[in-house]
């Protein structure tokens, strides 16, 4: 199975306890500690905790915890990953790689959701929620019907459509055997024509950071909201949507609801567990006026050391002005 079957001297030596040298460093890992960290799940199901979840429960959990990035139907929001669709596109110009169209093992989806999701609130899901979410992802990919239940007993048997779509790296045979030897040094081709230019596409970012190019100071906050600025701010708010909701029906996610945030005292959203840092600053009278919001959103961790908000900050003054205008516009 493996291409590295040769057993080296090192391997042989290490396999012999008599030769192994032990420095007596570290301490024995306790079973509780191993259980807390050893959560990876293998394709044969090793590592799965007992539990189960059905499609309909999954739909609810997904809507609550995943849909802000991945869409209600796992179709993906903006540049966030699409989890469904793409069937039969792998040989196309622009393949759509989803759990249904590309992933070889269902264990991978369970393992990733369990250990790494939701984004910004990882390792917060109960095993049954993970089973339900994965069941819903299968349903979104038309791989199961709405009565489907996924459990630790059925997961390893579930075969994904692209399970056989992978080969072990064969570059040594298909490429290295050809691309060796003394290369051509003179008169290697007749003509050299430009066939593609990056300047035509022009998707290269502009250079920033040189001192003479520092952004202009923020414009004075105007009393009346500029509709264009609010609209621009709504676009900037896409960066916040992974964790924050605003407006009608907004709920707390990994970040609190932001409706009416501008001008409000900090730490007032019900049901949200704030960081110690924010609570302390709120107790000291922090109000989210335009200036404080601006400073916080420009450099969250500088403005509030210890904040739970993992966002690195908005670098452009235009964006800061726009987001403030947008937040102000959604007052209730």
């Amino acid at each position, binding site marked *: 199975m493996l291409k590295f079957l040769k057993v*080296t001297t090192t391997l042989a030596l290490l396999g012999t306890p008599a030769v192994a040298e032990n420095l007596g460093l570290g301490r*024995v890992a306790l079973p509780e500690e191993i259980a807390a960290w050893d959560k990876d799940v293998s394709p044969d199901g090793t590592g799965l905790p007992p539990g189960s979840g059905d499609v309909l429960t999954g739909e609810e959990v997904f809507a609550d915890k995943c849909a802000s990035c991945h869409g209600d139907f796992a179709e993906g929001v903006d540049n966030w990953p699409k989890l469904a669709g793409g069937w039969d596109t792998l040989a196309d110009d622009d393949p759509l790689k989803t759990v249904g169209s590309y992933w070889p093992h269902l264990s991978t*989806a369970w393992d990733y959701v369990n*250990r790494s999701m939701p984004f910004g609130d990882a390792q917060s899901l109960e095993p049954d929620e993970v089973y339900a979410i994965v069941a819903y992802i299968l349903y979104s990919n038309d791989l199961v019907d709405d009565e489907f239940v996924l459990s630790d007993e059925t997961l390893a048997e579930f075969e994904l459509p692209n399970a056989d779509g992978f080969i072990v*790296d064969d*570059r040594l045979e298909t490429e290295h055997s050809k691309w060796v030897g003394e290369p051509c040094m003179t008169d290697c081709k007749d003509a050299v024509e430009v066939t593609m230019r990056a300047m035509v596409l022009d998707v290269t970012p502009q250079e920033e950071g*040189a001192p003479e190019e520092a952004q202009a100071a923020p414009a004075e906050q105007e009393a009346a909201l500029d509709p264009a600025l609010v609209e621009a701010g709504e676009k900037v708010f896409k960066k916040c949507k992974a964790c924050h909701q605003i407006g009608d029906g907004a709920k707390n996610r990994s970040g609190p609801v932001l409706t009416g945030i501008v001008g409000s005292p900090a730490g007032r959203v019900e049901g949200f567990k704030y960081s110690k840092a924010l609570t302390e600053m709120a107790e000291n009278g922090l109000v989210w006026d335009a200036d404080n919001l601006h400073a916080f959103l420009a450099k969250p961790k500088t403005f509030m050391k210890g904040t739970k908000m993992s966002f*690195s900050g908005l670098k452009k003054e235009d964006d800061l002005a726009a987001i403030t205008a947008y937040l102000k516009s959604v007052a209730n």
Partner: protein
Amino acid sequence: MSKKTEEMMSKGPSRRSFLRGAAAGTAFVAGAAKAGTPDPLITEVQPWASGLGDGVDATPYGLPIEYEADVIRRNVEWLTADTISSINFTPIHALDGTITPQGCAFERHHSGAIDLRKEDYRLMINGLVDRPLVFTYADLERFPRENHVYFCECAANTGMEWAGAQLNGAQFTHGMIHNMEYTGVPLRTILQEAGLAAAGDLSDKWVFVEGADASSNGRSIPMEKALDDVLVAFKANGEALRKEHGYPVRLVVPGWEGNMWVKWIRRIEVMDGPVESREETSKYTDTLADGTSRKWTWEMDAKSVVTSPSPQAPITHGKGPLVITGLAWSGRGAITRVDVSTDGGKNWQTARLAKPGEKMALTRFYLDIDWGGEEMFLQSRAMDETGYVQPTKAQLREVRGLNSIYHNNCIQTWWVRPSGEAENVEVS
């Protein structure tokens, strides 16, 4: 061309850095041209030659002088949904030598760069070992340690260029790479401390390595590599790792794709087989033209790029002596030779290596020419100790198609104009 494109082009980085550079170049040329006129920078006493500079404690930890403020990592915003799970690029066009300063070495995070104190750091070894162990940072410092220089290249470096010339600058096309001197403990030593007798026959065993951040990025590494040259590293270029590179401890997997160099490494599990984690199935697998995908494409093949002149580093001095320079590397051993072409691959000259190539480390090459001011199509072509010759993009596409994303090690072309401006192009 649309109005917008036109507008963007006139403001594009290449154009702008060229103009900035050209202005400086004009000043130099003017100084040289008026050889008969005394240079006031020499004849007049300058403030710095008369007054006093900063005291020793002005910058307890120094940063580059303000005049180098544009030598920074840069992000390509449209590549990813946000900056937390994203990547930026090393300004290789502005660096020389081979060691990448930590402060401008590219970053790749899956859940952001975390704050993890040495005091809070733990490393667990478990699975098929005789004694599952937990080490503190202080424990790691008591193992015999080694120093090695290795490059770390993201498998997606140059990945945006599969379908055509796209990003205009060596930083963006080839900047997902850095090269540092690491200090650390061989993984072999640490596994030995836990004891591998329980694993039995090691030839089909793996280790699963996992980070402490929320993405808990995990990869499976075959035991042979784990026992060969993998390092558990805590220093880079002589000082502590930077937060963005995994402070306080990261894994160094020489020659293999950067995703396996797990940052904030917290757990190493000896296993019977690969976990087939998200990072080794849905990502970091290379889809071929027929829709099948290669997995376990760990090694980074031999590759090179001219870093200057290049779109962000145009020629500003006019014709005459010109230093063409670049970087070459191979994940399968040492670079043995680099050839440079100025005519798009018709004819090649062997470049001078700054020093003999080192295994799995960057090699700097130079070609010193007398430029006549003519148009050039600059290319470089690396060879490594296995005899492998860096392929053209056409050769790669023939085998792999356009959808591999990862492992694009093709020969790069810069079209240098008589004005000295350079552009990323593809040539026949």
